[in-house]
């Protein structure tokens, strides 16, 4: 299954449409905070942008840390989030090695990428894309 990848961050123009799309479609919300991916500058706008997002781990530390199995590994990488099981403990946020999960202060659930790919449909430069893992084939 395809995974969200930041394909070429140097093409990013910082419009933040991806973040708005995540908030709009996944959370029916108008928010920059409530977006599973975060576009930031590296240190001021002249330094270029970086996009912090879920790496789609095949052995996700966040799911391992989740005491209630609200987060479980997703086939092909990343996680599935089952909100009805979440108690809002925030262990997943602490466990993520790349700070791609943040707890929502109002809803007490993790804002976490579920690899739905809606953000990629609102990127004018295809900076982010849903990518199937390709293992290089070597002839022997």
């Amino acid at each position, binding site marked *: 299954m395809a995974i969200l990848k930041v394909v070429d961050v*140097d093409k990013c*123009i*910082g*419009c*933040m*449409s991806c973040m*708005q799309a995540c*908030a*709009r*479609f996944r*959370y*029916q*919300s*108008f*928010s*920059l*905070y*409530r977006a599973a991916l*975060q*576009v*930031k*500058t590296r*240190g*001021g*706008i*002249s330094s*270029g942008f970086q996009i912090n997002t879920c790496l789609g781990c095949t052995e996700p530390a966040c799911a391992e840390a989740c005491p209630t199995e609200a987060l479980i590994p997703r086939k092909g990488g990343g996680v599935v989030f089952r909100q009805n099981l979440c108690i809002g403990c925030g262990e997943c946020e602490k466990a993520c090695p790349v700070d791609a999960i943040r707890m929502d202060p*109002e809803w007490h659930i993790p804002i976490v990428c579920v690899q739905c790919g809606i953000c990629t449909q*609102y990127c*004018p430069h295809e900076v982010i894309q849903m990518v199937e893992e390709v293992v290089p084939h070597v002839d022997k």
Partner: protein
Amino acid sequence: MWINDVRVLHIDLTNKKVKLEHRPDLKEWIGGTGAASKLFEELKGHEIPPGDEASPIIFATGPLNGVLPLMTKVVAIYRSPYTGDWGESHAGGRLGMVMAYAGIDLLVITGKAERPVYLVIGPHSVEFKDARHLWGLDVFTTGRLIRLHDKSASGRRSILRIGPAAERGVKFAGVNVDTFRHFGRLGLGTLMGMKNLKAIVVVGDDSTHFGVNPEYTKFYKEIYDLVVGSDLLHKYHDLGTPQNVLPLNNIKSLPTKNMQKSQFEYAENISGEYFADNLLVRKIACSGCQVGCIHVGLLREQFGPEHEYKYTQVSYDHELIFALGSMLETRTAEEVLKLIDQVERLGLDAISSGVALAWTTEALQRGIISEKDTGIKLQWGDTERYLEALQMLAYRVNDFWHLLGEGTMAAAREYGGEDFAAVLGQEMAGYATGPVFYVSQAMGVRHSHLDTAGYSFDQKATEYTPEAALEYIVSEDRRRVVLTSLVSCLFARGLYTWDRIKKGLSLIGYEKQAKHVEEIGDEIRRLRWKLKVAMGFDLDNVKIPKRYFETETFRGKPDPEFTNKLIKMYASHIKEIIK
């Protein structure tokens, strides 16, 4: 935000007091320009002398900021320290979206801090921070230090700051927004300087629910697809505004050498095409816009023997290229970038600064002023001297530069040379297209080329009469005042037709405003003009300097009779609407 409530955050710098006011009634004025003008009137901003510490600065977003693509701007309303009357300036960058997510619809700043401060404003906090260590620093260093020491919400914040020119009271000092955008004109930076306010950081970290529903999501997609998939905004994305340089030059409309000419023999060297092919390194967008019109050029400079190089990223636009390029006969794009970079660091308005130096150069050559006055010899195209002169202007090093910092016309009044001061209300924008543009800037409510785009009428009109010109000016003004109340970028004026404006407003619960949007726009126009005239703008004393009648334009040498007739008709129109 606008949709559920209208939140006005008042910050009193004198007493370090903050007050949150709920003003849903301001929705009657849509938002942006409309709501801020109404609030300015309520605060009696027009009765407080310009430069008085009580003089309010109002920053306003509108109901569609962040909600739809290209709704990205913030309007600032204030009493201009430069003209003494209506101050209105618009900026992009991140500020619009960040204010929307901070839940601040209007931000009102009054009073004067006892010592230099900067403000850090979030959805649930306002901090007054000591800025004594930042006072005196240039715009970029100020930004760097704030980013370094204030780690709040990187990526979801906007940083406004002023430079040395504003601290010293140069009347056309601007405010830098997020490194590459500005509240450039009519001295908003000057006013912040007078208030001892070095910078404002806004953090937008909140979320709201305004009925994000399928209908809204569908409309957003429709607009998004037009932005990225149609030709509507191609020009702004491709070469950006500098694509104007060559076409204007070809039709004798590129102000050159202090308006002595309207064509520049080195125009190719400073064209949008040259910049894009040779110096463009990246494009950036304001938050909420997919166009990416902010063109950033690479300034590569050797600073030592052998191969010692440094590089700087400089954003360039048509207005800067004309003011610091053709107006000064700067012959290379690389030199234009150097001059822009200097203007940015010092926190000056690029247009006014370029035009002021062009006037100074001509005045020196004519012997109206001497090197004794300026302390420096200026010559067309001599970039190194101009770089130095910009410093002298920002730091107001002697009587001459102090006076020039009051405005080109202020200096011309003292020394002579009013006839060749390229001033139309304020220093001119980059269009020598003909008399309609000249009148539209001289009489525009904020003396901006963006007020009514008279340059477009000059270029396109088939029926070229004062009557047709006035009709065009009024119809542009009527629509633009609505766009800047939403608050839209004016590059989206082709995208946001009346129908789309109405649909956008209806989707967020502004059905009533959608229905009467033209009438509300007219009310806002009426209010703005009333306040501008109340602050001293004299409709019967609008002057177009002699130089404009001597230089060829696309429409030939402007006919004084045509020009004066248009001025009179425009003045009567304004008197009629404010009666």
